[in-house]
């Protein structure tokens, strides 16, 4: 084979062996990001029964317009249905509603990427933090330094969850607001996360 083409078998083996020896740098947040989503999915599966109507709605909804139409149809069946859908959507915006952190140490908030039904409709994610908090990211330092609001553009095919790091210099309870918008900046959902920062160690 190799004689016909030119490259020797040994050279081919060497190339692929070198390629195999490369270590890929996996994001330190990857495991927590995936497992948060896995756990949410497992929880969702466990709660599948009361949310059956939502699942049916989701299966009908192929795009955002269809989704809202389906919601309208579901509403005709009863206000409770709509409320369940809203609760469900709301619960998927972030993994936490309250958490604690230590002053001076970056704390991660995991913001879920859009669910399948919302994918494509949700195109902008905005995270707002109070003045006393700082965004923290070594990789994106020039982009987040000094900012108290960041917006991330989401591609329709994006399903990743977003770890967002915040840092406090003083003790206290802070509110972080997460909002999802459509491409036209129409607000599709929001959630506030309370973070209590305390001094670490004694």
């Amino acid at each position: 084979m190799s004689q016909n083409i030119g490259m020797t078998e040994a050279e081919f083996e060497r190339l692929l062996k070198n390629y195999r020896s490369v270590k890929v740098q996996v994001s330190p947040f990857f495991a927590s990001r995936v497992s948060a989503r896995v756990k949410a999915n497992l929880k969702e599966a466990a709660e599948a029964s009361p949310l059956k109507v939502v699942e049916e709605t989701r299966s009908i909804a192929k795009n955002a317009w269809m989704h809202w139409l389906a919601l309208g149809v579901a509403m005709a069946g009863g206000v409770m249905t709509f409320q369940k859908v809203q609760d469900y959507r709301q619960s998927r915006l972030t993994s936490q509603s309250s958490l604690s952190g230590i002053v001076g140490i970056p704390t991660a908030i995991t913001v879920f990427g859009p669910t399948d039904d919302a994918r494509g409709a949700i195109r902008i994610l905005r995270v707002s933090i109070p003045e006393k908090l700082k965004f923290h990211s070594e990789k994106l330092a020039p982009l987040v330094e000094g900012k108290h609001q960041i917006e991330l553009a989401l591609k329709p095919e994006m399903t990743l969850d977003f770890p967002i790091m915040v840092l406090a210099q003083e003790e206290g309870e802070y509110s972080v607001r997460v909002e999802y918008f459509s491409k036209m900046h129409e607000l599709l959902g929001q959630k506030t996360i309370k973070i209590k920062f305390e001094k670490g160690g004694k």
Partner: protein
Amino acid sequence: MPMYVCSSTALELSVVFSNALKKQKRNSSVGDFVKRVLRGDPQAVDLIIKETQNDLIKFCFGLTGNMHEAEELAQEAYIKAFASLKTLKEPTKFYSWVVKISKNIYIDRTRSTDELGQNRTIREIEPGALLGVIEDMGSSNPEELAAVQNVLNLMDPDDKVILLLAHHQELQGPEIAELINIQAGAVRARLARARQEFIRIYEDQGE
């Protein structure tokens, strides 16, 4: 000289043996964690991911040639795997199972892109770009590694998968056959074809 050949072969054998042992140890630990998840221990989910993420993302990076897509592919594979964990007959085979799932997702995505008549985005990777996502370049040279990734990016998805399973994940014929649903006897011919394709593109790129 014969001494050199002997010690070199012995060294290679010991590396192969040590890698096989490492894989066996990993599969055994992961098997235990899978049993813990099935008993309702959510902490074991993290342990399984931590134990397998580097190898899986490396495999996905080989498929996609892009770190973000690799992480997304791996994430989707993990979610699918955990959602149907109860169907996994042998817990020690979790890793090859999740590799199979990621391979299927990748092939499905590629096919649906092709069916829609969209061209797959094939980005040429500059050696410098690899430095950002690769922790340890070892003694290899970045130009050569970028060239290998660029060839993989241009390969037919099925050929690329079999090449990565054999030369990257170091799987044997029967394991590969099981992962890509072909007869064990057909693996050799398919692999030879993939190698030939790799060499052809590599040499075309070099011209």
